[in-house]
């Protein structure tokens, strides 16, 4: 009697989850009716963090590209939103979608530049690119120069309506981002990326076009970063070059992903939520909170390199069915 094994993706847990998530999304959508404005704002902040963490994880954990310059695309998204909504007079929510696209459009040619570097030098290179973009943007008078620019597109709207609208946009954004990420990882691209991440040379030899796949990820995540940038601009009603292009965004993203766990979809979400509460608690401590964050980051990388989520789930289960597993089926090969 030999047991039969089947290659499956997902377990019983995974079948229940889509139902839970749909319910969750619906519940969240109804929130503005019941929730006071400050809490809606908090949710928007949390959603933005989750998008940033998920995108950075996609780039680094799946794409194998560690970048500390993604704030370039956050900035491009933010400025594009302001430009399209104010200067071009488009509907701000349409402008949001377009701003994300603009980010992607910039990412394509930039990828040719940064891909000439690898490893740690790639990381710094992306940062230098972000600095250069900032220096160029600051020269443009229409975009407010060095002191930044305000978003006027919402001036006709009442505050409650505006916050609710931004809330729903952020909700839609996070839904789309997570959905795309899951679909991407279950797709051929996702498989290719996992292969590249595990062994670049072997993947190449098997016919995976490493460069093209990486470029695709790079461009796709930049759309996500642009989306986040647009949302940030909408929430703050203002874009300031030193803030929006700040490398602190990279620090925060790295921290969220490392804490949560690189290379899984759940990890960054976990990390983002954890970070949100941490910075909510600690932001009064000023510089100390960043020092603590830094030390915590080092501790986790050294002691639990798979992140807190990785440590908790330890390959036993995952919320999103993206990994293949071998499981015993109930059938047996009879004689």
């Amino acid at each position: 009697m030999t047991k039969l094994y089947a290659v499956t993706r997902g377990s019983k847990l995974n079948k229940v989850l889509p139902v839970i998530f749909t319910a969750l999304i619906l519940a969240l959508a109804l929130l503005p009716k019941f929730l006071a404005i400050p809490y809606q704002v908090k949710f928007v902040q949390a959603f933005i963090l989750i998008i940033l963490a998920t995108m950075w994880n996609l780039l680094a954990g799946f794409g194998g590209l560690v970048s500390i310059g993604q704030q370039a695309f956050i900035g491009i998204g933010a400025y594009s939103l302001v430009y399209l909504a104010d200067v071009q007079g488009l509907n701000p929510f349409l402008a949001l979608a377009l701003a994300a696209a603009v980010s992607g459009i910039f990412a394509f040619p930039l990828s040719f530049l940064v891909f000439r570097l690898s490893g740690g030098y790639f990381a710094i290179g992306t940062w230098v690119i972000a600095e250069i973009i900032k220096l160029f943007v600051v020269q443009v008078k229409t975009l407010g120069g060095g002191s930044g620019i305000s978003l006027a597109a919402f001036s006709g709207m009442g505050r409650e309506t505006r916050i609710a609208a931004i809330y729903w946009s952020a909700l839609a954004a996070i839904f789309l981002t997570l959905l795309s990420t899951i679909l991407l990882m279950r797709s051929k691209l996702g498989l290719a990326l996992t292969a590249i991440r595990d062994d670049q040379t072997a993947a190449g030899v098997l016919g995976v076009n490493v460069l093209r796949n990486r470029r695709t990820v790079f461009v796709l995540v930049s759309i996500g970063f642009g989306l986040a940038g647009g949302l940030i601009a909408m929430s703050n009603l203002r874009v300031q070059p030193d803030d929006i292009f700040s490398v602190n965004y990279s620090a925060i993203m790295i921290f969220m992903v490392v804490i949560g766990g690189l290379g899984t979809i759940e990890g960054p979400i976990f990390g983002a939520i954890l970070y949100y509460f941490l910075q909510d608690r600690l932001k009064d401590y000023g510089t100390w909170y960043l020092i603590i964050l830094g030390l915590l980051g080092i501790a986790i990388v050294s002691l639990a390199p798979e992140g807190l989520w990785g440590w908790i789930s330890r390959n036993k289960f995952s919320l999103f069915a993206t990994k293949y597993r071998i499981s015993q089926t109930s059938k047996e090969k009879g004689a």
Partner: protein
Amino acid sequence: MIWTNAIIQGLLTGGLYALLACGLSLIFGVMRIVNLSHGDFSILAAYGVVALAMHTNLILAIVLVLPVMALLGYLLQRGVLNRSLSKGALAPLLITFAFSIIIQNVLLQVFSSDNRSVQSGRFASMSFKITKNLQIGALPLFTFIVGVLLTLGLHYFLTYSRVGRALRASSDDPGAADLVGINNKHIYGIATAIGLFAAGIGGVLFGMRTQFAPSFGPVALIFAFESVIIGGLGSLWGTLIGGIVLGIGQSIGAQIQPSYGVLAGHLVFIAILILRPQGLMPKQKGK
């Protein structure tokens, strides 16, 4: 004549960039670690000298700070970074980035964000008149000479000394280095110690000619990085040349418009990345 002046100033500044960069280059060469906190350590040294110089004279302050930088490098490498080498390419990057954040914020906490400088008295303003229109500052000249000497010194060290050979062997094949009796953990510590020592020298000289704040670490890192890339990976002399080219680029840009200096440097970097990504003097394969 203004252009000649600009070029010479840029050349001399290049020496400073080479100083800031050679440690970065060495650490990467031996361990494939890109130390994202390299610039912050430079600035840390400058602050150290500023703090000590309040109680003693400048020379003594420098003499005390630099070995401390080396020791710090050794301890951090052996205590934290060595462990991360086996955890994939991401871990050292994350850890050095965390170092960067910690250093900047500790400095902010201790020294506040006010601009500081390393006071060197008359030395900072001394200059030599070469011709009617050409003046060379003593400090920039001194910095350049130190930069060249350090590059030379490191080159000789790596080529002819027992430990230098061990560093190169370890960088080629750490497993084989074990087999000839080299303790890689210790060697890596030495590399980082030298790297941070060099960063310290760069930081102190930087602090003598420019005002600085805790947030200047990243600026130093970017200049160091651009010097390494322009010059070509794996070559100390390349890093020196890269620093000089960067310095000259910035200087010419600043001559056109004062605020264009840094941007011009970035553009030179981008140009090299597009036209000659291996750098101006890249290391040949195998040597």
